[in-house]
């Protein structure tokens, strides 16, 4: 399994993402600078990490969404291979149109960092097969703009197709229908605001995030 983590100026969870991937696969991912135009030969899995690409200026993820590497990421997704965006990575996937909707300023207007209880809504996906549906897990969140918004049609479609993978057990940011993470129609692109890579170690955020990487990458 060959993985790549995209690094944008202002990414700050790139190291955390790499640690999680290495912990599960035993192999360090390639760290790919946003100025590149191609992914490393034979990349199976691409992760867009959290952080504040371009300082979250203009719109979160907007400027990263037009950087040079994005066409390669889109091609990877169109080839049906897995792409995961966490936090700012989720915002970027939305800006590129790989995922529907928008992520608005938190309803409280405050940045919110806490260990958020989530419910696994659909465990029959390549991202969540390591969980069981309706299982409650706790994953840290840390964001200012995680308030998921989409029109009812889109929301109904997401729910109807089982593309809502995680919901907040107690909504921290105002997200429509408590949505914390979604997948695209084909099921190979997933975005979530919570940080599974911060929950892979009992003493540092818990281990509830491990199953996500294991589902995707198979344990080492």
């Amino acid at each position, binding site marked *: 399994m060959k993985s790549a983590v995209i690094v944008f*100026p*202002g990414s*700050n969870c790139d*190291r955390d993402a790499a640690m999680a991937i290495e912990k599960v696969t035993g192999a360090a991912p390639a760290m790919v600078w946003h100025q590149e135009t191609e992914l490393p030969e034979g990349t199976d899995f691409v992760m867009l990490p959290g952080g504040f690409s371009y*300082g979250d200026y203009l719109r979160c993820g907007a400027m990263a969404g037009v950087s040079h590497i994005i066409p390669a990421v889109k091609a990877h997704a169109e080839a049906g291979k897995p792409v995961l965006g966490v936090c700012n990575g989720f915002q970027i996937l939305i800006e590129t149109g790989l995922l529907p909707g928008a992520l608005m300023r938190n309803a409280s207007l405050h*940045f919110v*960092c806490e260990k958020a209880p989530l419910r696994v809504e659909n465990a029959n996906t390549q991202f969540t097969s390591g969980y069981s549906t309706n299982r409650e897990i706790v994953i840290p969140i840390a964001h200012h703009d995680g308030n998921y918004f989409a029109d009812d049609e889109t929301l109904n479609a997401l729910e109807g197709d089982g593309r809502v993978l995680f919901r907040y057990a107690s909504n921290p940011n105002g997200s429509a229908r408590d949505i914390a993470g979604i997948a695209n129609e084909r099921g190979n692109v997933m975005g979530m605001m919570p940080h599974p890579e911060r929950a*892979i170690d009992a*003493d540092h*955020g818990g281990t509830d995030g491990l199953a996500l990487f294991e589902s995707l990458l198979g344990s080492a």
Partner: protein
Amino acid sequence: MTQFAEGITQEIADSHLPRDEYEKAVEILGRAPNLVELGIFSVMWSEHCSYKSSRVHLKKFPTTGEKVIQGPGENAGVVDIGDGQACIFKMESHNHPSYIEPYQGAATGVGGILRDVFTMGARPIALMNALRFGAPDHPKTRQLVSGVVAGIGGYGNCVGVPTVGGETNFHAGYNGNILVNAMAVGLADADKIFYARGAEPGQPIVYVGSKTGRDGIHGATMASAEFDDESDEKRPTVQVGDPFVEKKLIEACLELMATDAIAAVQDMGAAGLTSSSVEMAGKGQVGLLMDLDKVPQREDNMSAYEMMLSESQERMLFILKPGKEQIAFDIFNKWELDVATIGETTETGRMVLTHNGETVCDIPLDPLAEDAPMYERPWARAIPEPAVLADELSQPKDYEEAILTLMVSPDLSSKRWIWRQYDRHVMADTSASSEDPADAAIVRVHGSNKGIAITTDCTPRYCENHPIEGGKQAVAEAWRNLTAVGADPIAITDCMNFGNPEKDHIMGQFAECVEGMSEACEVLNFPVVSGNVSLYNETNGFAIPPTPAVGGVGLIPDLSKRMGFGCVAAGDILMVVGDTEGHLGASIYLREMEKREDGCPPPVDLAVEKRNGDFVRGEIRKGSIKACHDLSDGGLAAAASEMAMASGTGLNLVHEGDLPLHGWLFGEDQARYLLAVDEANAKAIRKAAKDAGVPLHVIGIAGGDALTINGMIDVSIADLKAVNESFMPTLMGEAE
């Protein structure tokens, strides 16, 4: 007869330098200074940069020890944490800017202290913040809290360094001068530290980071001026922080530091280009020749004066080894940061600046530094207040109400509203932060099983009533907090926040706090390795309470042995290490229940502090303790309430002996810890205490869902949590 250069009037001169200092400048130059030179003298000789009032006293601090690699004098202190690794840290104030523009003031404070740390080659791993606001009901408080907290979070969250802890007080004494003290901690290889010293003649001076604008011109001198009601008008352009550029700057600088290109480096902090270049030249004993036309500029036709005094943020100055410029240029271009060679070091020993082809400044560097004014300001000792012991005070009518009153009080209430806005987990090495039941924050040394423990402490009401004991206590509490999580305390940084030093009693507070702190550092082998002084925190003659904030750092050799106060189970035996005489002078109890703020604070016996602490740490390492919480504000009642709330297990305390109950519960006697011990270990630990000559008192047993005392007083954990969580949301108008 005073001489003036062309275009300089007495008024202009006065607005830059006191008259005696002006004469000194004339002497040094052998002529009258022009405006650029006047500006440079004024910032270099400002309180902020020259420490002219505080230097004589700061000398008293113990600053050496077997773990100290670099003490005060560089951008930050450096200590040895074993395995060839070093921990770098420093605390700094941004008080005045934060009062004027809370968000940007606090944000740029975080940016500045981060630069002090990564300037030395360290990867920042943690931020702390020590905040003091005015009375909760003061009309400005809500807006100041909201702006400062958003600013600290906005900057720290964006650069991706976890903000893991801090402290927050509210008191009318800060109504006109809030305190925003930020601390940064970083890690580096002990043999890869970078210093301001090391420059040699003939080396290129390279500017990197943001462009220079007219930001905060004279901020350095403003930070040394007392406020009055017009300050709102007199303010210079406020500095705006750009955490996105800072993040790129961190990565780019660490990339350059991994090469062999750097001779010396300085961040551009207060008095930007001036102090950074002068400091490096002074420490390297070289001269400077800089062409200001080469400085990257954000605005049109900036004058030499403006460029030298600008406080634009996110800028660094490197002196590179000859021929290494291209390496730097490639790295900074990759990160899309401005980079320019603006001059070179010389053998002249002078600072020569050219602008538009003309020489606009020519100052001999040594005198600029060495003849900097140093004042032995007159100071007066504080008149000690009498102790206040429990038996002089009537007992509270209702103990349950008293406990709840303390737990909802501004200083003891939960600060969740604040730390929820800080990313405490980024970098995935946070072992304990604000949300966790531990007396110090703990951050894992990446890729190892070691932990760095960090705490900030100061009890201003003690310093107000007895500066010497207050100074001791600030250091002792930091040491105790590190001990309580199982760490070996290593060293401290400090941030000395005081009023106007030109007043005897204020200078006296400073001198006596330093005296007390120094004694504590000595006895506890806890040296000062960095720090910062903020004076003139005074408005219309009202000075802040003396606030010598202490930032302590310690090492946990094996993270699996770290301690907290959340793991308490029914049946655990509760014990207090240390004796209780019931000191209520300057206590939270006295303030909240008796509405009195007088009295001598609890005395600090440093020998006892050390003995008790070493015992507790030893038992933690042996694994004989399940939970440990130091006793401080609010005494046993507060510590027990916090332990009960954190563990969700009730604590049932029994008081025997003739000390009045309110003295036993609320006394703030020092050198004490509350322990929860598994019954199986109780006997052994009591014997160990006896052998070590450490007083250890069994005070009860865990169980149930309430804090109870002598079976009569009964406060449910639910009620404790409800009041404890209610203060901040109510203050901010966000209570459900």
